[in-house]
């Protein structure tokens, strides 16, 4: 799949960070929708069914892991990359147990992020074809 066709959803309450990340992705030809909280994320998943959701673990309101769990229940094909900003990797491991594709720690390396997105989309495609 061409990067232009990727549907990416970015979820983080850090406006400056996430909007800048979206802008940078856009410069690389990747369309990314940005939301700032868990509820909006759930709505966006329901509306757009993104290929990959980049989800911050620590947010006010619905927490990242809960969003992940609900998304994996409603839209299991959506691949989730978790972002953690704090010390414990427990959240990352817990996220993987709940079905996250991988987790990354801030600050991000944008190329690594894109590689992981690609792996996730690739994996989702293969999984879907295997499922069929």
């Amino acid at each position, binding site marked *: 799949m061409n990067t232009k066709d990727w549907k990416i959803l970015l979820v983080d309450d*850090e406006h*400056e*960070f996430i909007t*800048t*990340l979206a*802008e*940078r992705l856009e*410069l*690389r030809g990747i369309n990314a929708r940005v939301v700032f909280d868990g509820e909006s994320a759930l709505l966006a998943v329901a509306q757009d069914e993104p290929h990959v959701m980049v989800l911050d673990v620590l947010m006010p309101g619905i927490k990242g892991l809960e969003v992940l769990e609900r998304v994996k229940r409603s839209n299991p094909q959506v691949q989730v990359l978790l972002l953690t*900003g*704090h*010390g*414990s*990797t*427990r959240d*990352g*491991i817990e996220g*993987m*147990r709940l079905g996250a*594709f*991988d*987790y*990354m*720690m*801030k*600050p*991000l*390396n*944008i*190329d*690594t992020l894109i*590689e992981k997105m690609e*792996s996730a989309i*690739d*994996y989702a495609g*293969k*999984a879907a074809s*295997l499922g069929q």
Partner: protein
Amino acid sequence: MRKLAALLKHPLRELASDVDEAVSPERYTMLRRKIIALMVAATLIPLSVMAVLNYYEHQNAMAREIQNPLRVLVNKTKSSFELFLAERSSTVSLIASAYTYAELADEKKLARIFNVMRREFEGFVDLGLIDEHGTQVNYVGPYTLQGKDYSDQRWFQEVRVKGKYVSDVFMGFRKFPHVIVAVQHMSEDGRTWILRATLDTRQFERFIASMSLEPDADAFLVNTQGLMQTNSNNYGKVLERMSFPLPPLTFEPTVLTMTDPLGREVFLAYAYFPGADFVLMAAKPRSSALKTWYTVRGDLLFIFVAGVAVVLFAAMRVTDALIQRMKESEDRRELALREVEHSQKLSSIGRLAAGVAHEVNNPLAIINEKTGLMKDILTMQPDFPAREKILAQVDSVLRAVERCRGITHRMLGFARRMDVSFEELDLGELIRETAGFLANEAMHRKVDVQLDLDPELPRIVSDRSQLQQVFLNLFNNALAAVGDGGSITVAARPENGDVRVVVKDNGCGMSDETLKHIFEPFFTTKKGKGTGLGLSITYGIIKRLGGEISVESTQGVGTTLTITLPKGQREALA
């Protein structure tokens, strides 16, 4: 209350409080002294009391043991004396009664009677008949005393009054010590006469000798006026005045302790004669009498001194051992406290580090993205004025961000290492679950993941989350190393009470140079890929959990990572 507390203050309690405070060497010395004093007092006081009581009890018993035989001996000898005198005076009395005056006045007859007396009874020297006027009318014996007038002598008066008389020892005309026994007889016709016999006192000496006393002991007869009746070794010759005053009157044999004129401590056994004017005495120096006692006393003293030495030795040894134990336990306690303090400090630092890293990471992420965006824009506009200069600045900022990222990640790594919480867990289940996270990726890359977990694997006490992190890291590394269609084997076996996990892949392997640095912090060959947790953190965690980690690798063949984990909690210091 304070008074009560003071009253209740026991020396041991004081000791116990000392124990708490006893940390300095001086304290230990003081404590050592106190314990030794207490132990010595607790053992020596009863020992000494027992020794003293024993000493006096023994001494008294020994004295009694010595005094009793002496008393008995005096009593027996006194009886012999009494019997001797009684026999002799009865014989004289019998003769006086059995013969008439005329018969006794007959020289030949008296001589015959005297011969019989001498034959039958020892000690008679002579025999004489004295008429009522005191004139000796007949006499048989070695001296010429016929016709001697005794009328003015005391014994004559006394026998006239009492009818019977036993004299003290005296010299008289005979010039050798003797005793007289005189009996007055009254015939039916009213005529009175006196029969008088003389006894030599050699018999007395024989009685004394028969007492078989030791050479330094002394026995003698003395009269109630204090004149010696027999020779004494130490207190005077016969008829001399005894060199010390008479003891109190008693007919029962008695023993008293006194200092004799020679200055010796002596046991003096004596008894007054009820029927005569005599006192029999036996003196025995205490020193010789108590010779056995002095031996026993020496033994007792030796036992006591030996006991004291043993007690002192034991008290010192026991106290030293006790103090040593206390020192050791004090040291251990201090070490444990220091360790707790250290780990608490590390734990607080860990929490602080995690907080700081978290707070810094978010703004750092913004700086990173903003700068990244600037770089993106500049890269897209080749004609931007001073583009190269600005790009250099931007790269510099990005490098600084990367440095900060390194710092915060190190801090987070440190915090993670501090954050150990032990629980009992099933390592097989943990490995299976962690491998499950990567099952999807393995499946789509057709990587064959084999789990060879011994069903007998014991449960271990360790940190679940940290172990998951370790295995996730190792599996990720293995997955990254093998190509599509590769294989990974994870084997777990119990070994010597520990558990050994081997993660083996047939991936690209590592060069010897890479192997040298594999456990160094932030060493990577993946250039930004992965979770950002290097093998150094894995290494740190395994060490922290008390385990070991080793790696073997051959380039182009594969890598084998071996982890040994203790079955029980064996936390190593970070």
